[in-house]
């Protein structure tokens, strides 16, 4: 309540009159947490807040002897609103770090402002490749995979599993282009062939017309990338139209992530996806994390909550490394970039562009003890967003979002 009243007051113009409040140095360290609380992305926003709060509670709300104060703000998943909110956090609340961010368009909109202010921004979910590639900056970090990061090893692996010809279907915007692009690149380089790519637009109510247009007779597998309600629709309709069982369905994590898997039910059984996290992972850190998360929120963690948990941990580790002295922005950025720790997903560290280097898994949806889970079936060790390329070579290639229609022959 106190926090809310403060936010309330801060938003009033009058708050500006006392602009010269000097923050009481490092007795309290403030972290802004931005996530969508309203609209279609609200459910992901909730996971993001939960994961972050779980970690903060685990460390008793203290970091390097200072009190850690978390200020949550609603981005409404709108870039314009996100920018205003982050200005509030930085200029009015005087936060030392900002975490969260689900939508890539919001992340892009904040990027320049945060670089100018040089306050560390640790993105928990938004996956836009460019954020930690062409637009990388010393104070911009990301804890979840970049758009095509999990796709690269997966595409090659698919070829090795014996698939030679695939059809691809993904939403017609950047997320879909990046995730399918990564698969298409390594799959075709290995010798495979993409024979068709379909990109249903935003707001497609019904996937039936696309499903029935897929050239499944000529393909060995369907590669699909969808998220949220679209993923539920797609997976259910894939079964309804008799495709399930006749052709394998593979994709990226969002297609069957732990958040929506329960809603997809048995339709999802057998789908193979690539990602860095599922709640079924058998790493040293995951069992305790899943248990604590379930106890606190009465549901399984997702890659959104885990990503946000890791965000909190990265920030905490950096504060500890500096002994709580956050006075030099350059040192704060360096300390963050240097963190390296065990997390629920396994070993975690940043690459030279502040995007994670972590293990990628192929997961298969199975039923275990009555529950549907994403069971790991293959591990690709320590994968970075650049995969086997050098950063320079990689970034010299055209971004996936611009070449989505070039894959299909």
């Amino acid at each position, binding site marked *: 309540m106190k926090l809310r009243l403060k936010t309330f007051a801060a938003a009033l113009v009058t708050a500006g009159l006392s602009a010269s409040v000097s923050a009481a140095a490092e007795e309290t360290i403030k972290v802004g947490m931005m996530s969508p609380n*309203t*609209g*279609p*992305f*609200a*459910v*992901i*926003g*909730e996971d993001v807040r939960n994961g972050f709060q779980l970690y903060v509670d685990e460390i008793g709300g203290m970091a390097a002897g200072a009190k850690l104060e978390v200020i949550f703000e609603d981005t409404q998943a709108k870039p314009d609103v996100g920018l205003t909110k982050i200005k509030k956090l930085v200029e009015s609340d005087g936060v030392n770090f900002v975490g969260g961010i689900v939508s890539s368009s919001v992340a892009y909109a904040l990027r320049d402002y945060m670089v100018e202010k040089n306050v560390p921004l640790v993105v928990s979910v938004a996956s836009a490749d460019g954020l930690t590639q062409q637009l990388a900056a010393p104070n911009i970090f990301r804890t979840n995979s970049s758009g095509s990061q999990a796709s690269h090893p997966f595409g090659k692996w698919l070829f090795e599993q014996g698939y030679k010809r695939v059809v691809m279907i993904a939403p*017609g915007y950047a997320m879909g282009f990046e995730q399918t692009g990564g698969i298409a690149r390594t799959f075709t380089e290995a010798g495979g062939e993409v024979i068709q790519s*379909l*990109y*249903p*637009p*935003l*707001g*497609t*109510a*019904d996937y*039936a*017309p*696309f499903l*029935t*247009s897929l050239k499944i007779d000529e393909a060995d597998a369907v590669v699909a990338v969808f998220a*949220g*309600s679209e993923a*539920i*629709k797609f997976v*259910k309709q894939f079964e*309804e*139209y*008799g495709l399930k069982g006749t052709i394998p369905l593979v994709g990226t994590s969002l297609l069957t992530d732990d*958040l*929506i898997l329960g*809603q*997809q*039910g048995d339709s999802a059984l057998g789908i193979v996806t690539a990602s860095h996290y599922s709640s079924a992972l058998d790493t040293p850190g995951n069992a305790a994390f899943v248990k604590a998360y379930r106890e606190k929120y009465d549901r399984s963690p997702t890659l959104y909550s885990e990503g946000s948990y890791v965000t909190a941990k990265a920030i905490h580790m950096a504060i500890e490394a500096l002994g709580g002295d956050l006075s030099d922005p350059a040192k704060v950025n360096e300390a963050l970039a240097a963190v390296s720790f065990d997390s629920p997903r396994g070993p975690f560290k940043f690459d030279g562009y502040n995007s994670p280097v972590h293990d990628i898994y192929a997961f298969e949806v199975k039923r275990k003890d009555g529950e549907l889970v994403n069971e790991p079936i293959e591990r690709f060790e320590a994968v970075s967003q650049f995969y086997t390329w050098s950063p320079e070579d990689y970034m010299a290639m055209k971004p996936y979002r611009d070449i989505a229609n070039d894959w299909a022959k």
Partner: protein
Amino acid sequence: MAFYTIQILNGLSLAMLLFLIASGLSVIFGLMRIINLAHGSFYLLGGYFGLSVLNQTGNFWLAILVAAAIVAAIGMVLQRVLLERVHGNELGQVLMSFGVLLVISDLALWFWGGLPQTLDRPDFLDGALRFAGLFFPKYRVALIVCGFAVALAIWLIIERTRIGAVIRAGVDDAEMVRAIGFDIKMVFLLVFGAGAALAGAAGVLGGAMLGIYPGADFEVVLQAFAVVVIGGLGSLRGAFVGSLLIGFSDTIGKALLPEFAMFTIFVPMVAMLVIRPEGLFGRA
């Protein structure tokens, strides 16, 4: 050939779902001149109430009935308490109903959570029909049949019953109906409730086909408006033909020209408004 057969069936199933929503929207407009954006909220609420009933009882038909009844009640309250007060002010109605849409979608998010949900359909409608090497979900066949049945029923009510005659007269001239002694306000209320009930039932039926999730209200109401505009505001026949046209353009158009898929609804809508603002079957 098989491709087109399946796409036509796809188009038909979407069209019938749209018709359930758009028919009410259209008749309500014809009678009361209300542009009700909150009609999408009726669909959303129907889906969610249906979900709650389904989770409690497991009975799909009961879910449809209860959802339709609750949404009808909400619709009638909305009509009496809010929309009627701004009668004659078209922009006022649009903005007020937009406000209602915001409130309902936010409260639904609060109450049912943001997780996209699917409604379990009755067992006998699970699975697919196979004929001539084609594969088509049974549920969609049932939806198509249901859509035609509802269309026929509404047509019979409007063309062959006393209340239907009053409604037809009201669409032509509400003042006259009042003048010959009918309680036109009661007719308004009942028709509004019936339209809301149809949209609520559509929420359950659609929820079992497409899922129910935050934002479904807005998607649906924009499509329904396209249907109503193309068919002609106030015309039941127009709503039916409009549903077919939008259903087909949205499925076949998207399948054939995916690059232009975002334009399959609004471009036909603008074209119709420019060429014939009153729509195919509307009266100017």
